[in-house]
């Protein structure tokens, strides 16, 4: 069942959803959002793409096999946790770096916590997609 309308709409939606998912991921620490939600939104985009154009097309769009995306996410999250040890803290203690911070201005925060959230994002995205693609290919 190929629908031209769906395909045309999905092309736009996928791009929007992906941008939105990254937006949600990045704002997560202070406002509703985060890696889990971001990953779900990103996955929704690819799932729609798969429904409209087929799983093979969606796999191409993702570029990497989804299982590998999930495993990479797990690895990144672990790395973010282990990173604390190199700064003399215990595992999974958040490490923060404020770029360009002054007396009054906090600067741009870069943290291991964000890296961890990126890992969560990739795990959720990869896991859902590996499941969905496999399901779609087997029916």
């Amino acid at each position, binding site marked *: 069942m190929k629908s031209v309308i769906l395909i045309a709409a999905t092309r736009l939606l996928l791009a929007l959803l992906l941008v939105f998912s990254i937006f949600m991921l990045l704002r*997560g*620490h*202070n*406002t*509703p*959002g*985060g*890696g*889990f*939600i971001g990953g*779900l*939104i990103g*996955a*929704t985009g690819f*799932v*729609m793409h798969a*429904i409209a154009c087929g799983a093979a097309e969606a796999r191409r769009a993702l570029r990497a096999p989804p*299982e590998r995306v*999930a*495993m990479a*996410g*797990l690895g990144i*999250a*672990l790395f973010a*946790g282990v990173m604390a040890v190199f700064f003399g803290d215990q*595992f*999974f203690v*958040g490490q*923060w770096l404020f770029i360009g911070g002054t007396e009054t201005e906090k600067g741009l*925060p870069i*943290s291991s*916590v964000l890296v*961890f*959230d990126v*890992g*969560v994002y990739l*795990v*959720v995205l*990869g*896991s*859902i997609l*590996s*499941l*969905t693609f*496999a*399901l*779609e*290919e*087997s*029916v």
Partner: protein
Amino acid sequence: MAARSEQTGPWLRPAGVIPVLLAGSLFLAFAQALGPVGAGDVLRYAQPWVPSLGISLSFLIDGLSLTFALLISGIGTLVFLYASKYLQGHSQFARFMLFLTLFMLSMLGLVTADNLLTLFVFWELTTITSYLLIGFDHATAKGRRSALQALLLTGAGGLALLAGFILIGAVAGTFELSELRAQGQVLQDHTLYLPILMLVLAGTFTKSAQFPLHFWLPNAMAAPTPVSAYLHSATMVKAGVYLMARMHPNLGSTDVWLWTLTIFGAVTAVFASVMALKQSDLKQALAYTTLMALGTLTLFLATDIGYALTAAMTFLIVHSFYKAALFLVVGIIDHSTGTREVHLLGGLARFMPVTTFAAALAALSMAGFPPFLGFIGKELKYAGALAVQSEPILVAGAMLLANAMMLAVAGIVSFSPFWRRPHLAEPLKPHAPHWAMVVGPVVLAACGALFGIFPDLLAYTLVNPGVAAILGPDVKPAELKLWAGVNMPLVLSIATFALGLLTYNIRHGIRAWLTAMGERAPNFDRGWDRVLDGLKALAAWQTRLVQGGVLRHYLFITFATLFVGVAGTLLARTGLAAPFEWPALLVKHWVVIALIVAGAILTLVTSSRVAAIAGLGAVGIGVALIFIIFGAPDVAITQLLVETLIVVLFAVAALKLPFLDPTGQKTHRPLDATLAVGIGAVVTIVMLMVTDGPIDRRLTTFFEEAAWPEAFGRNIVNVILVDFRALDTFGEIAVVVIAALGAFALLKGRRA
């Protein structure tokens, strides 16, 4: 059999050299402790591990642990060197050496641990590594079965041991062996003494293969020979003996201890020495003599007489020397001729003179001839046997019989294959072994001779400190000497020689008779199979009962169990009286309620699958709206997205699913609806009860206050997920990945 056709490539490789160097340097490191320990010192090292549970990573070196540590690392060095050549060119050589090295380290941890729980961890590690080693030839069904058998038996024993240790900790208030010792006879006088003893002995008897749990040990000979030589002669099987010796001050010196160990030890020793004669496979024969040795050691650990324990310590060392040497010799024979069957072997002395020499030395020590250490060991055994409190005649008689059979087996293993004139059906084409394989047997056999001639070398360094570690420094250990004058032990020794030589000469008759008898005797190995089969049948029956393959039944059973459990508890505890006040609802609340109710009803009555999914989706969205109304946007967004994805996944899968109610009878619908309503009611009541009580806001307050200053985040949910509880989240995403991979494998596997 094993590696004969695979000898290609260099034999000295990093994977082989590193373990040898490691074991050798550990041996030297432990040897440094000989001086202080010989002088009566006890070395201790401790580091807190799990302080909240009173577990510390503490180690202790006294005479007993040092003896074991030196045997483990020393024999390890020789066996590793031997294995480098034995498994030369094997495709999984590196893996093999890794397992062996891990095993050695676990074993060293076991014998030096001071904390009972640390000891238990190492105990289990030896079980796991030995499982991997026994099953190293995992392509053969026999290897797999033997490995599993050893794992299940020793693992079950290990669980009993853990229970015993926990009871000890509860009774004595400490897990440190050194502190337990200082307490004296606290455990013996406690009412829980008998359960503790039974649990600990269950662990040690399975590990040290005492009758009737002995059968895994001969089966474990499926492993490559270096494994048998290392694990099943000198080290792992002696872990049980070590633990009995270690617990002797705390659990010993009672009648139960004395008689249990005496009876099990004596039966094992006699049974095994007779069974050893029946074997035609050299390795099997040695395996049964190992059982005999383990029985003997158990027998002597039963008492608290200085003589008997000196005998145990000495025999422990003697046995490790000659048994490891003989196993390695059998490996050489196997490697060089391709068989271990005693009828097929003969005249090997011409081809491998050095091996023959080593085998002869080791066998003379095993048979207990002077001036070998084995002779001293045997004299001490008789002296110890005559001194035991239980039944000297019985113990000495058992020893006499077992020793005589050992002499015969020593002849079968190391005389017959080398010197018997070869009237062989198939001509053997043996090759002389490589030096790396010969050095082990030679060194070990030479140790047997050296310490026999100079027994004081051993007595003051290891045996006496070892006895002192078991019985305390006040008990006088027996002296080790070759000539103790004409006394009862000497007479018994001479009787042993006569009986042993007689047995050796009529061994064929005995074997035939034993084989005939074996047909009728109960077979423990087959009994084990029946137990396992029974267990599997039970599991299969249970699975068929609960898991019929219809998803609806699974869900029904799961939710029915939940309902009965929760509703039953509520009824029993509170009588289902939920506090409830009808709140003032706004219009938006009513809209949400209407949406949820309508969705639920639609799901319940529709016969279209798509409509049912849409109905469920409506319920989910209603729940998400509730989250939004009550100020949890993160949860609401997640809920909405999950609902969306579920609908999409269902839509994809729905193409393959049958109609909701193919027969159109809908007989299950009322029942399902009732259950659903019941679950909903029960959960509602629970929620009402929970919210009725005063809410403990400590956690919420903490997170609200700490999120910004400590974690630089204003979204508490996210801060908790990625910072305060990051480890939990990591565990959860790992579960997500595992679940996805599992589902992926299922879907892909189904398609193939």
